[in-house]
């Protein structure tokens, strides 16, 4: 039977990697990811997980070794955050281009300078064009469930792309919550074994990986990744449904989750742990007879544009919350991506929580009130201290 443990988000990710019986882990510590890689080291040290743990000297090497391990044919897991993810940037493209199904946990944290270890989502959103599938968790249970699903999505022959599972730094990484841990056999039965046909290193069947692709070939490789991303939309939904059936936990349709969108005209689009607070506010207002709604983005890449449009068909005023900022454009990443698809609605961008700035329930209620009267296309920095 499954068991319930009261654990942090980083532990949930580590437990999931253990349940997936990963073969290789190559990781480098950084706050607030650290407890994940420490936990994995414990698992290996205690014989609870049979894996090679490569204690690399940097995140660049962590990703390089992970790519190579996966290219050899091993199920591979790593984890990072913020500065570490930025250091990996170059090789994140290589992972996607080489079509290796590495799974990585990223603890969302702000980027320097000034140095700041607290949460926002600038780190992963800055990697959006690298060809990685990006999934975002709302709570610790979802972290565990997403990491398990991530392996099945990444290794699917119609996908074969690396997957990044994101969780908000400190808010999830350092908060304990009850998490249901399924049995290892059930998880392994769900994910299956990894037997790559496209990328392995075996002297019996020599394969050249990571070749030079001149202008005659390069563009097709990008198109192939884009096609895999489009395939991934269906695979992510299917994997989610199969998971829900087997483990009795569902999250919308796997890519987005609609919360009270049927009757609400004022809605928020958001991603990550903040969705919990928003749902509480929606429930509270419902008791007062006021209908407001939430569209939670669970899968940011591939971005399920049609699903988002469809889910918002009854909405009028859409508040898009971003824990990131494209400096010089004064918009967050989600707004920049989504607003152009919602031309028939009012869209307002709210920049929130940068560098761990608190987002209160009052802030959320304020946003719902503001979006009704605010000008279309405006950007508001919530909680900014003005001189």
């Amino acid at each position, binding site marked *: 039977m499954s068991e319930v443990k009261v654990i942090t988000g980083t532990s949930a990710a580590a437990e999931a990697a253990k349940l997936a019986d990963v073969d290789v882990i190559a990781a480098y510590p950084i706050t607030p990811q650290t407890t994940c890689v420490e936990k994995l080291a414990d698992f290996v040290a205690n014989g609870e997980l049979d*894996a*090679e743990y490569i204690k690399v000297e940097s995140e660049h*090497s962590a990703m390089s070794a992970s790519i190579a391990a996966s290219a050899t044919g091993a199920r*591979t897991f790593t984890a990072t955050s913020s500065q570490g993810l930025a250091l990996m940037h170059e090789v994140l493209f290589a992972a996607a281009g080489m079509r290796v199904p590495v799974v990585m946990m990223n603890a969302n944290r702000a980027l320097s300078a000034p140095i700041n270890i607290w949460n926002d989502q600038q780190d992963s959103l800055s990697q959006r064009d690298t060809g990685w599938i990006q999934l975002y968790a709302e709570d610790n249970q979802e972290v565990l469930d997403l990491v398990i699903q991530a392996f099945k999505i990444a290794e699917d022959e119609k996908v074969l792309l690396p997957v990044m599972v994101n969780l908000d730094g400190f808010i999830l990484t350092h908060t304990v919550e009850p998490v249901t841990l399924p049995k290892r056999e059930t998880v392994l039965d769900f994910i299956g074994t990894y037997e790559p046909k496209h990328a392995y290193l075996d002297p019996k069947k*020599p394969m050249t990986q990571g070749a030079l692709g001149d202008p005659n070939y390069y563009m097709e490789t990008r198109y192939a990744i884009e096609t895999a991303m489009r395939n991934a939309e269906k695979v992510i939904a299917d994997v989610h449904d199969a998971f829900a059936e087997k483990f009795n936990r569902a999250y919308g349709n796997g890519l987005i989750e609609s919360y009270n969108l049927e009757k609400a005209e004022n809605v928020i689009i958001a991603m990550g742990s903040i969705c919990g607070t928003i749902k509480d506010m929606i429930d509270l207002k419902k008791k007062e007879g006021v209908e407001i709604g939430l569209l939670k983005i669970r899968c940011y890449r591939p971005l399920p544009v049609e699903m988002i449009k469809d889910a918002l068909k009854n909405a009028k005023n859409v508040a898009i919350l971003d824990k990131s900022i494209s400096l010089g454009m004064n918009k967050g990443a989600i707004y920049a991506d989504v607003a152009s698809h919602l031309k028939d609605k009012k869209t307002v961008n709210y920049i929130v929580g940068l560098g761990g700035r608190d987002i209160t329930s009052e802030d959320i209620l304020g946003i719902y009130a503001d979006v009704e009267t605010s000008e279309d296309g405006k950007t508001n920095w919530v909680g900014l201290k003005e001189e």
Partner: protein
Amino acid sequence: MTGSQFPREELFAPGHRGCAGCGAAIVARLALKAAGKNTIVANATGCLEVMTTPYPETAWRVPWVHVAFENAAAVASGIEGAVAALKRKKGKYGEEKVNVIAFGGDGGTADIGFQALSGAMERGHDMVYIMYDNEAYMNTGVQRSGSTPFMASTTTSPAGSHIRGENRPKKDMPMIMAAHGIPYVATASISYPEDFMKKVKKACEVNGPAFIQVLQPCTTGWGYPAENTIEMGRLAVETGVWPLFEIENGEFKLNYRPLKRKPIEEYLKVQKRYRHLKPEDISVIQKTIDMKCDEYGL
């Protein structure tokens, strides 16, 4: 291993895109002959990688992977870890040892890849790292590296009226690697193929990390006629500019002692990268080589 015992099988296919007379191709060819079929190669970005794998062609008859410029040692670490895990957990790769060999140029090794290399050596991975040293960044058009010798002219250390080419001595990679306490470090030359291949074989057999720095004459970057590649390598050894030695478990051993060391001038005067040198420059270089050779007992 003597000439007649060289394995005939070519694991590095003829027909790559390197310059005529490219020493890097000779490095790869000889190393694979010595290592044999049961080998997986990780390659850093650079001449060797670019010239051998223009998609859909490949010169590699062993499994080969390239990820980026500065990470060949980290990539080899990942391969070694994966092979160990797959052997143990899934019974893959059979009984025989799989050699994991990383090839990196001097830039990919001594400069930008230095951190990844140091990490991999210190962690004790069972791998062979072969630094093919052509003493500059050749793939990008002959820029200096940390391994460019004193006074050599490159496009970023040009000989001008004020500066006489590269103003710093060559980074001492074998000693730096030996300081990591790894079981096997060696220098080699493509012009001494038996010695080089013997060293690759030994490096593969060693348990733990092995590092071989092989001097690789480069016709384009050094400026000499393509047919003289082997001759250039020989002159480097005969003049004492490139001593052949091994450091096995900390013990230093000289592998070759020229009967009489040739004057350095014979090596320098046949290369365009040294053509700006005046007699007094050459005697400065001669002095530094004499000192080094004294140290090595050469």
